[in-house]
């Protein structure tokens, strides 16, 4: 019956360390204040009272990359902004994830021209793409919940 069974009957719930750590990480994933364009306004609406992203642990939009775990690329990334985006991503502490919010971040959407990076995955590795131009606040929150599911399945190996 394995260890869990015996200790469960003794009233103690055992949990693999991996699940516990991953669950703890999805608890308070602070996004970095990284609003670029129109999606930033929708991100603000998602943060405000009506849609309230703080219900899922996204309480604070941290200003500096040092204190944030999640980078929501909200808006179009221009060629001039790409090195800045990469430097900010590098300066974030280790368990970090990237949500590419909106069509402009995911594949530069309507603007297929010289000025934009065609999709932010050329600059930073992206975990979740949220479609929409701009995506509704519910869509952003849905994207973040999918990210939480993905974080829960992350293997322990590449962590230590």
């Amino acid at each position, binding site marked *: 019956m394995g260890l869990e069974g015996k200790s469960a009957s003794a009233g103690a719930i055992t949990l693999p360390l991996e699940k516990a750590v991953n669950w703890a990480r999805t608890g308070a994933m602070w996004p970095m204040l990284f609003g670029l364009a129109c999606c930033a306004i929708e991100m603000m609406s998602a943060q405000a009272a009506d849609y309230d992203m703080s219900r899922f642990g996204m309480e604070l939009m941290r200003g*500096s*990359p*040092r204190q944030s775990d999640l980078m929501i690329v909200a808006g179009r990334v221009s060629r001039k902004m790409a090195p*800045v*985006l990469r*430097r*900010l991503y*590098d*300066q974030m502490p*280790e*368990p970090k994830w990237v949500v590419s919010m909106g069509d402009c971040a995911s594949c530069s959407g309507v603007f297929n021209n010289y000025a934009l990076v065609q999709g932010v995955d050329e600059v930073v590795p992206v975990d979740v793409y949220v479609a929409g131009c701009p995506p509704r606040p519910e869509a952003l929150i849905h994207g973040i919940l999918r990210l939480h599911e993905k974080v829960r399945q992350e293997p322990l190996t590449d*962590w*230590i």
Partner: protein
Amino acid sequence: MQVEYLPIAVLVLVSTLMAFAIVGLGHLIGPKRASARKLEPYESGMRPIGPGRRQVQVHFYLVAVLFILFDIEIVFLLPWAVSLRKLGLFGIIEMAVFVVILLVGYVYAWRRGALEWD
């Protein structure tokens, strides 16, 4: 009388243990992937201009000292406020004297323009 202090001792012990545990565990178990770009000083996303350590205006020091001064004053107010009923009139007069002394210092700093910025 010592029994009174046992809860405080336990509180201090547990809090220091907790603090060291949290920081220590994070330091021991947490992954450390320091890269040159990560350790570069953060300057809102751009390459920092000039070195990090630099001569800073003396006025920052002055404001900091003033803050510490009046912060300590508040720290003394706390235990006084808690045991005010026992101290009675004596306590009020004593604290009044203490506050007035600091008030003189405050007015002096104010008149000399330490609070104005330049």
